[in-house]
């Protein structure tokens, strides 16, 4: 790609100008992506309008659908807020503190990315379900659902904030301290502003993940109306339009979140 430096005319770059092969590879990539992702999604949107717009609207705004969306978005927001605080705190301790077992702790943060969601559900149910050995039964409650969501989304904010915190200039903090700033002032005026983009990026990913989560909730949710579970139930009842309508609403929320937060996330290149 072009840099600011004065351009020397070089022979053809490896991949770009060989017109035929560049076009071929681009064509292949876009075709494959369309077949796997775009065409199925297009059919989903088409199907939701299969019985006309009013049928779509009725299904998308039925009391059941609205309740599911309200519950899902509320829980996702709460979970995202907790993640912002706890994720930043965890990242802080992992970067600025020194203690035995820190390296191990650092490496298990990614476990929720690696663990199948159903196993996460089973695991949390074993501890916080009706057979709970510590006597806390949170199964089928929104607190239980929130704990599962907190588990699933744990790594996003931590992994987003950690690299930024590592690169933070400590001289500035020392300068502030020598000028008489308290720890709280340094944290509020120096550290938080530098971390903000990273926190927002992690929060966006956590929120997107939380509103769509299914696997870890299916055993825990019970009567708590989670959008993805309601969609699955409508599919089971052969209510294709109803399932598609709620899916399209959820899809819209996801795409908006992606567009708003994608900018932040791109910088970090986070694994999801």
């Amino acid at each position, binding site marked *: 790609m072009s840099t600011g430096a004065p351009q020397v005319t070089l022979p053809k770059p490896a991949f770009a100008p060989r017109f035929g092969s560049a076009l071929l590879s681009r064509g292949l990539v876009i075709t494959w992506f369309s077949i796997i*992702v775009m065409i199925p999604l297009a059919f989903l949107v088409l199907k939701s309008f299969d019985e006309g717009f009013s049928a779509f609207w009725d299904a998308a705004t039925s009391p059941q659908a609205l309740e599911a969306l309200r519950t899902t978005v509320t829980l996702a927001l709460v979970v995202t807020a907790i993640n912002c605080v706890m994720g930043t705190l965890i990242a802080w301790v992992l970067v600025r503190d020194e203690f035995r077992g820190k390296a191990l702790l650092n490496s*298990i943060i990614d476990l929720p990315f690696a663990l199948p969601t*159903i196993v996460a559900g089973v695991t949390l149910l074993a501890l916080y379900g009706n057979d709970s050995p510590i006597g806390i039964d949170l199964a089928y409650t929104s607190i239980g659902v929130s704990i599962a969501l907190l588990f699933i989304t744990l790594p996003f904010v931590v992994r987003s904030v950690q690299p930024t915190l590592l690169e933070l200039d400590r001289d500035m903090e020392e300068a502030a301290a020598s000028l008489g700033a308290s720890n709280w002032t340094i944290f509020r005026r120096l550290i938080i502003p530098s971390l903000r983009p990273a926190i927002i990026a992690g929060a966006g990913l956590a929120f997107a993940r939380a509103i769509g989560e299914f696997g870890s909730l299916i055993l825990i949710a019970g009567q708590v109306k989670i959008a993805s579970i309601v969609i699955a139930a409508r599919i089971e009842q052969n209510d294709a339009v109803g399932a598609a309508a709620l899916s399209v609403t959820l899809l819209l929320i996801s795409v908006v979140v992606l567009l708003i937060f994608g900018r932040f996330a791109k910088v970090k290149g986070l694994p999801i």
Partner: protein
Amino acid sequence: MAQSRKGRWGLRSVVLIYLSALLIVPIGMIVYQTFEAGFVDSFKAAFSEQGIAALKLTLLTVAIAVPANTIFGVLAAIVIVRQKWHGRALFNTLIDIPFAISPVVIGLSLLLLYGPLEPVGGFFLDNGIRIIFSTPGIVLACIFVSLPFVVREVVPVLQEVGDDQEQAATTLGANWWQTFRRITLPGIRWGVTYGVVISTARVLGEFGAVYVVSGRISGQTETLPLFVRKQFEVLDSGGGYAAAMVLAFVALLTLFAMNLANRRKDA
């Protein structure tokens, strides 16, 4: 920022308590439960005929979906980073769509395209290819879900490596394949490795999309995660825990590989 000893201990305790409640103790629980249910019995239940079939199907899915995503991922990253074209930024954003969508919605979209009663699915069925409630649908769902992982890992690495060496190789007369194999690929290998590891983890554990498209026929279209869920539904949780343990063990291996690849990537 110099923290007092008290403040440091306070923060550390809060973090350790939070992570114990959320992560460490639950994982310990599942290991304990498997053994409590009788180690041998529960593994016998997990590796009954149905459990074995589920394991085989899951491995088959991984064997198809991960290589497909790796080839697509590397090619897509090159197309995004090394080629200038209209719509590059849009494509770069669209690639992330599978991350942002609920797996159930992904499953439903495949169901509405390839379902036996839909025009496209009907066409395939007439030609003897059953997609939904069969292996092809499960594989398609897994490819969809894990599509962006390799791309997302390779794009930043490719950007950082730059194309100076590729240009030098081309100047010296290397063809594109030689350039790719000897210059580009070695430069991005740890990024690719990391992407492959998390794709594998995601495909192994995929639940929502597969839940919708598979029809969950025991012994036929049941993957290991679906098997775990069914065992709990029929209250045979011993076998469920054992199968969950197998998945959790693979997840721990994945975690180890992720840390290894990450360290190499940063080195």
